[in-house]
């Protein structure tokens, strides 16, 4: 297949294996001399381990714990606060303490039940609200940032304001529910440990292993196995499992397989940070915004992990797509004794967009202006500064995208129709809501230049077959396909003839993690350049190799201390319109129509993009009204998919979407990031639609039937 237009869809590289069910995931793999591992976990939320008593272990069964770690006892992520095996303090229910290994899972489960432990329990912090109250106690604030206009000048503006509006907004957990639960295999060999499994970031794992095993670069090797979904859940979490299986494999000199079942996965793996967002906005007589202060609190869970970076993105998006005259923001990551929270598609931005869209929507109601009209007054334009004194330097197509959806959805007419419908129907109420959003593509600030330093390699064999040698994971999102297309097109080769094998750190350089909507834009661009280079040097019948390194385009330099400069090289944009029908007797929300326009520079494959839109938006909508996870005294309550309730095909409607072209110079064929963007607008649009239907305001997501019924019931109570 030759590629005329890069956007034209091709069959996905991994299509056949997945559709036929032939592809082996990690839990399908068996290797010689393999045993299983099961984790003994903390039964309490906070306390000190006094003693551990193991049952008599039958022959071939062994216990592995902190004493077997050759390096320091922490999982290398950013800070050194996450033990591989907790051996002194435990900080959350489910924290791994030791691993039992052996041939038979049935026996291992029985032995797990027989482990006895003496603990000294301490007073735990269970909720974000408790943590906020104690935020000045030692260890509770794990990270914080502050930036924007000085509070003195804001307070001077507030003096002259007609009204000051304060709102507090809460967002809940979100669970990734990747189809394939987490799994990792540590293969024992005389001269190396090979760790293979479901993952997004091969070199994060490799670096964690080098630290944990205190070994050399050649002593460990990381290989990605087919990965059934990640959504950020397989960004940093797999590093811990990799340390577990590698330490165990080395200790028992056997290969060790660790696979979670769904309930274990739901209870102990990272989730989206629950957040509290506080807004304080000064308005003039007409209801125009004079200034705004935002405070963001993230529930980090028991250790910091990537939470500080998540907070950065939450703060960078705290003003949404709006140009607010005078703006100040501050944020905290707070420690609670609950399961650690981590990366999740959107990385802090979904919380902020849900909050700011909700707040702006509520301000528009006060001003008696249609929310969309009100939002458009403040929409940023090309050339405007960002809230960190960076610049929106590329064209912004938001106005066109909005106009297009106003027409497609028949917005004005719908509003009128819904009003009539709602007057006539006692039980069901219809509403329409909108959201405007963006996503900064790639790592924040100078991350690519200073931390990642991506390198890509193209290898050409004697028979002229070209392979991509990069460390990025296809986890279902389609980069096997899109990145191969880019290389094929540059080299004028049929797409089928370009290979992209599952990455293995022995073979591939560090082209960075598969996160942050960076892969297509950053790695894709490097591959485009590498392909150009290879083409220029092409020698038929000769083995060849080319590499390319990341080159930073200097803009307004990012300063993490002052939080100033260009936080991102480029932004992708989106507009969602959502229509719902709410059953006022049950509080159930039915999606009726969903419209979505996006601008991601240039689409590399139409169908892959549609996959991101449909999946991302379904996940984002569900975050707003459907998926509900709670923690009670440090224990996650929903342990099954049914109880958590992600949407089924019966819950989502056909998503009518369009993608606008706006090529970006530093992306391959003009492409920017698309993966996270599609999630972000779902929740705020669904909230606005529910509010429109019920003519009320909510201060939280998810807006579950329980929340709706409580609000309707309270309203009735007030009236009566």
């Amino acid at each position: 297949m030759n590629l005329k237009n890069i956007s034209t869809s091709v069959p996905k590289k991994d299509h056949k294996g997945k559709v036929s069910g032939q592809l082996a995931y990690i839990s399908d793999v068996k290797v010689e001399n393999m045993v299983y591992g099961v984790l003994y976990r903390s039964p309490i939320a906070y306390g000190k381990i006094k003693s551990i008593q193991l049952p008599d272990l039958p022959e071939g069964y062994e216990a592995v714990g902190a004493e077997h770690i050759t390096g320091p006892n922490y999982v290398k992520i950013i800070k050194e606060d996450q033990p591989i095996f907790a051996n002194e303090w435990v900080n959350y229910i489910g924290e791994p303490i030791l691993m039992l290994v052996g041939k038979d899972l049935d026996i291992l489960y029985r032995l797990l039940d027989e482990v006895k432990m003496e603990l000294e329990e301490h007073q735990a912090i269970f909720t974000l609200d408790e943590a906020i109250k104690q935020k000045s106690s030692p260890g509770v604030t794990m990270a914080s940032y502050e930036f924007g206009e000085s509070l003195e000048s804001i307070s001077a503006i507030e003096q002259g304001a007609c009204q000051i509006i304060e709102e507090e907004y809460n967002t809940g957990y979100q669970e990734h529910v990747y189809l394939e639960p987490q799994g990792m295999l540590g293969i024992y060999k005389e001269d190396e440990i090979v760790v293979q499994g479901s993952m997004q970031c091969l070199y994060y794992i490799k670096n964690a292993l080098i630290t944990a095993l205190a070994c050399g670069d050649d002593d460990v090797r990381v290989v990605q196995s087919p990965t059934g979904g990640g959504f950020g859940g397989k960004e940093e979490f797999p590093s811990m499992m990799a340390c577990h299986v590698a330490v165990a494999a080395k200790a028992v000199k056997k290969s060790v397989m660790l696979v979670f079942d769904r309930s274990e996965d739901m209870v102990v793996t990272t989730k989206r940070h629950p957040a509290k967002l506080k807004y304080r906005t000064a308005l003039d007589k007409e209801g125009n915004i004079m200034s705004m202060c935002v405070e963001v609190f993230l529930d980090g869970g028991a250790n910091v992990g990537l939470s500080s970076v998540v907070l950065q993105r939450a703060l960078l998006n705290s003003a949404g797509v709006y140009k607010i005259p005078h703006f100040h923001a501050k944020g905290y990551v707070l420690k609670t004794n609950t399961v650690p929270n981590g990366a999740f598609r959107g990385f802090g931005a979904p919380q902020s967009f849900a909050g700011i869209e909700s707040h702006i929507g509520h301000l528009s109601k006060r001003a008696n202006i249609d929310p969309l009209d009100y939002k458009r007054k403040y929409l940023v334009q090309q050339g405007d500064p960002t809230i960190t004194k960076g610049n929106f330097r590329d064209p912004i197509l938001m106005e066109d995208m909005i106009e297009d959806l106003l027409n497609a959805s028949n917005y004005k007419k719908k509003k009128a129709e819904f009003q009539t419908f709602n007057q006539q129907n006692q039980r069901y109420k219809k509403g329409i809501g909108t959201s405007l959003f963006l996503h900064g593509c790639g790592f924040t600030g100078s991350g690519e230049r200073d931390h990642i330093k991506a390198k890509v390699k193209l290898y050409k064999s004697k028979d002229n077959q070209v392979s991509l040698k990069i460390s990025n994971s296809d986890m279902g999102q389609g980069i096997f396909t899109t990145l191969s297309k880019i290389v094929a097109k540059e080299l004028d080769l049929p797409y089928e003839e370009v290979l992209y094998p599952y990455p293995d750190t022995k073979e591939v350089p560090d082209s960075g993690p598969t996160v942050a909507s960076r892969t297509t834009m950053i790695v894709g661009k490097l591959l485009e350049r590498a392909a150009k280079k290879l083409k220029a040097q092409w020698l038929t019948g000769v083995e060849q190799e080319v590499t390319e390194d990341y080159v930073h385009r200097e803009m307004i330099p990012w300063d993490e201390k002052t939080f100033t400069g260009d936080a991102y090289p480029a932004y992708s944009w989106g507009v969602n319109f959502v229509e719902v029908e709410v059953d006022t007797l049950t509080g159930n929300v039915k999606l009726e129509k969903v419209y979505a326009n996006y601008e991601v520079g240039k689409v590399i494959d139409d169908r892959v993009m549609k996959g991101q839109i449909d999946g991302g938006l379904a996940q984002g909508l569900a975050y707003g009204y459907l998926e509900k996870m709670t923690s009670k005294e440090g224990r996650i309550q929903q342990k099954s998919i049914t109880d958590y309730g992600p949407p089924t095909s019966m819950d989502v409607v056909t998503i009518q979407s369009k993608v606008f072209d706006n090529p970006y110079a530093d992306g391959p064929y003009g492409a920017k990031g698309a993966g996270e963007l599609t999630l972000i607008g779902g929740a705020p649009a669904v909230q606005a639609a529910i509010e429109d239907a019920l003519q009320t305001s909510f201060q939280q997501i998810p807006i579950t039937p329980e929340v709706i019924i409580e609000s309707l019931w309270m309203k009735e109570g007030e009236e009566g």
Partner: protein
Amino acid sequence: MEETIIAYRFDRLEETLSQLNKANCAIVAGGTDVMVMHKSRRGVPPKITKPIIFIDHLLELKQVNQNGNDLHIGACCTYSELLRDPLIPMPLKKAIKTIAAPAIRNRGTLGGNICNASPAGDTLPLLYVYNAKLLLRSVNGDRIVPICEFIQGVRRVQREPNEILTEIILPSVLEEGAHVVFEKVGNRNADAIAKVGFAGYIRTKGAVIEDVRFAFGAVGPTMIRSNEIEKKLLGKTIPVTDMDIAKVVAAFDKIIKPIDDQRSTAIYRKTVALNLLRYFLTNSTHIQHI
């Protein structure tokens, strides 16, 4: 160490019953509850200690017959089969469509839903308002028990170890004139466990209420139905007055005692259950009147 599992699969009901009479066995119809109940952690097969006896294939248990105005449904009819059967009343089909998803509906049976006796069994509210009778058979013969006596609590039924539920009888269900409503409230539209279930039944002669029944699911250990409350409405004319509606709602308010759990809250369950009752009383009695 290999484990031996004893399993029986006879061609005929009679042989099945005689085996059941000899030894206490775990009856497996569709297996969709049994397998979940005995599930082990990952990688370990389910543990069922008793010998297993399969009944899902027994033709004697897969018939749907009309007998006068009564409907006889074989206990091992799967949901998918019932959805295709023209004799099955529409409200029951509506309830079945809310159960699980197609794969489970291809296996799960009506008899299994009853014998499993979950408070969230989705066919149960309707079967209660239909006054379903259950035909239980053993080597000693048949007996017929009303569903409300058979189901005694959460996963507790009044079945002798040697008995099989063979038929579900819905008396007079094929008679014209009754208006029946079913509503399931779950967290999503498929593969959801009910947070509240409601079934309402009303039959009028002219404007006079001859019969009225209500059942609530997932708001107590088993279905909640009250003949006493229902009686209060007999002989009244429709539309039911606001005062009578308020009385009925208040009476149920006293006996519906749901719980908080990982799926919902007690207050939500109760509010919604009463909302659905009120709506049924307001609207169903109106529609009929018009």
